[in-house]
């Protein structure tokens, strides 16, 4: 039985619907990242689960129990807020102690609990400080420590790395998975940074337009995005797209991509002679191999992390990106190349709905 389930969960404020009919099942100890842009209601979702706000309809079940009308203090959840929400009039130590005291822990258990999380999060030196004396990073760690202190069964983390600087975010991204695993809690982690989502999640739930458009492992999200939107959201540089008209090819279908005829995998015959959106990731593109491909001119070259990103223009004017590994040979700007990609790298989406068309 799943530990956390959302059933038909809906929330609206008057006529404004934040989300409508969310369903999700999370297993014990699973880390689910809720991913979505700002204003998609991710934070509100966490508030509903924590019980500080009421849903309009549907249920939140924790441990198989319907949580409707169960106040937040009895839900056994821990939550870290994007703005940290530390108690400004209490020291870091007292902040962390609050959930332990609520459980009426003995003095020794209290000290042990504070000791454990503060060492874990490396804030044992600043426990005596008031929140206003802490750096943003320390505040963020204190708020995490407070969420973890009482060893809740459920952890709700609301974009905890949003308000910390890039370096710390990078460190925490490495550190957090171990930390969350160790806690053993079922985690709902909200972010709008796809790399964070990929790094932390067992599964990612993509929240868009008031719905989960896809709930899947990071690998599946990347390799089989359920919608064009999801495909665009995950991956940097952004996925290449082109409108194509499918042609019949034997039992299957094929497309003409700027003069490069490529067969389309999967069962897509029903879409033959319709216009669809073809997409492929920039890192699927290889240049100047012996294989056929799109003839294109190199327009611009930009290094990005360990890779090199090329802006290419096909003869028909279509511009697309190629992301080459450092090992690959980089052509000169202005030169003409043949850009190859495999059938298996192709994603096909409906032009109207943006939904994925093949398996």
């Amino acid at each position: 039985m799943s530990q956390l389930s959302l059933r038909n969960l809906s929330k609206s404020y008057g006529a404004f619907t934040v989300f409508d009919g969310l369903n999700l099942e999370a297993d014990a100890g699973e880390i689910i990242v809720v991913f979505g842009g700002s204003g998609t209601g991710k934070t509100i979702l966490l508030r509903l689960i924590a019980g500080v706000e009421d849903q309009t309809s549907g249920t939140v079940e924790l441990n198989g129990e319907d949580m409707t009308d169960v106040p937040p203090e009895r839900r056994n959840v821990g939550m870290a807020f994007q703005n940290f929400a530390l108690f400004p009039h209490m020291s870091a130590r007292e902040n962390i102690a609050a959930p332990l005291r609520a459980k009426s822990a003995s003095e020794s258990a209290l000290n042990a609990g504070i000791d454990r999380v503060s060492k874990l999060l490396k804030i044992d030196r600043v426990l005596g400080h008031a929140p206003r004396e802490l750096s943003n990073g320390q505040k963020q760690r204190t708020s995490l420590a407070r969420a973890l202190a009482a060893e809740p069964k459920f952890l709700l983390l609301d974009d905890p790395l949003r308000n910390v600087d890039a370096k710390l975010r990078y460190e925490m991204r490495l550190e957090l998975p171990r930390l969350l695993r160790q806690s053993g809690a079922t985690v709902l982690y909200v972010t709008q940074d796809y790399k964070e989502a990929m790094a932390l999640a067992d599964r990612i739930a993509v929240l868009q337009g008031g719905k989960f458009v896809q709930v899947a492992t990071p690998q599946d999200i990347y390799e089989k995005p359920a919608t064009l939107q999801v495909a665009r959201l995950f991956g940097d540089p952004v996925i290449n797209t082109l409108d194509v008209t499918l042609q019949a090819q034997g039992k299957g279908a094929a497309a003409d991509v700027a003069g490069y005829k490529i067969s389309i995998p999967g069962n897509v015959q029903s879409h033959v002679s319709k216009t669809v959106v073809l997409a492929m990731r920039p890192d699927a593109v290889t240049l100047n191999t012996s294989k056929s491909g799109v003839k294109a001119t190199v327009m611009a070259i930009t290094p990005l992390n360990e890779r090199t990103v090329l802006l290419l223009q096909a003869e028909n004017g279509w511009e697309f990106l190629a992301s080459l590994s450092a090992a690959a040979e980089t052509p000169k700007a202005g030169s003409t190349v043949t850009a190859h990609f495999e059938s298996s790298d192709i994603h096909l989406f409906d032009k109207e709905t943006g939904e994925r068309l093949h398996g």
Partner: protein
Amino acid sequence: MTAPAAPAPSQKQSRFMRKALPYFLSLPALLMCIGILIPFITAVYYSMLRFRLNLPAMKGFIWFQNYIGFFTDPKFWNTLKISLIYAILTVVVELLLGLLIAILLQKRTWLNNSLSIVLLLPLMTAPALAALMWKLMTNPNFGILSYFVSLLGFPDMKWGSDPSTALFTVTLVDVWVYTPFMMILLLAGLRSLPPAPFEAAALDGVPRSFVFFRITLPMLMPYILTATLFRLLDSIQQFDIIYAMTQGGPGDTLLVFQVQAYLDFFQATNVGRSAALMIILWAITYALSNVFIKQWLKLREKAHGVA
């Protein structure tokens, strides 16, 4: 999938209790409201009675006779006139003077900040006591102000006891007490104005008078409106200063609404007329306060940010 187990009853919190909580929290204040609403309704009822405490036998319901009587009652028109003159005169003087002082103190220097605090002291003085202070200073026998004006060639100024100077005298006290209120609100307003337009105007060499009338004043307008309406609401109901200074006299010179109603009630014991007067004053203040509250809410939202 198994159906979710019902949670232990102890986990649940009664939805009724949760919904009732805010009402429960505000109930004591609500009861206070009700306690005050009853005399208010009584006042409306009294205003439709022929009701004199000294003639209990004549008591009777006369609908709007008290109000209709006002139309042909020169005493009433005098009350209305004096109240309006008093309110407008004091508020205009206080606004202009308060604005001037606020502009003088606008820069955040140590001296200006200290002065703005010290200048609040008149506002912290009970208006009734302020009237008493000025009474001592305008005493024809030994008052320091009487002495000063005698040096200026007015040896027999009677201040509050002369019909020709009574209004001037109480206005002076009102201005002394309440100008700091205007000053402190407008000062806060001035200091909260964004500096960018002023810097731009200074760079472009825009004349100072233009800056004041075309930039400062319009931007300050919400504060001016709030402060003015606030004062107008208070001033049209002024009682303390006038009562303490002259008890509405000499003659009928200063019989503003509340003083007149007080005298009707306690001297003439005409409860019906007194109540009717108060209802009319209430109608005026109610209309004003609706305008005011709108203005006040706007400013309040700005002060607390849009949450």
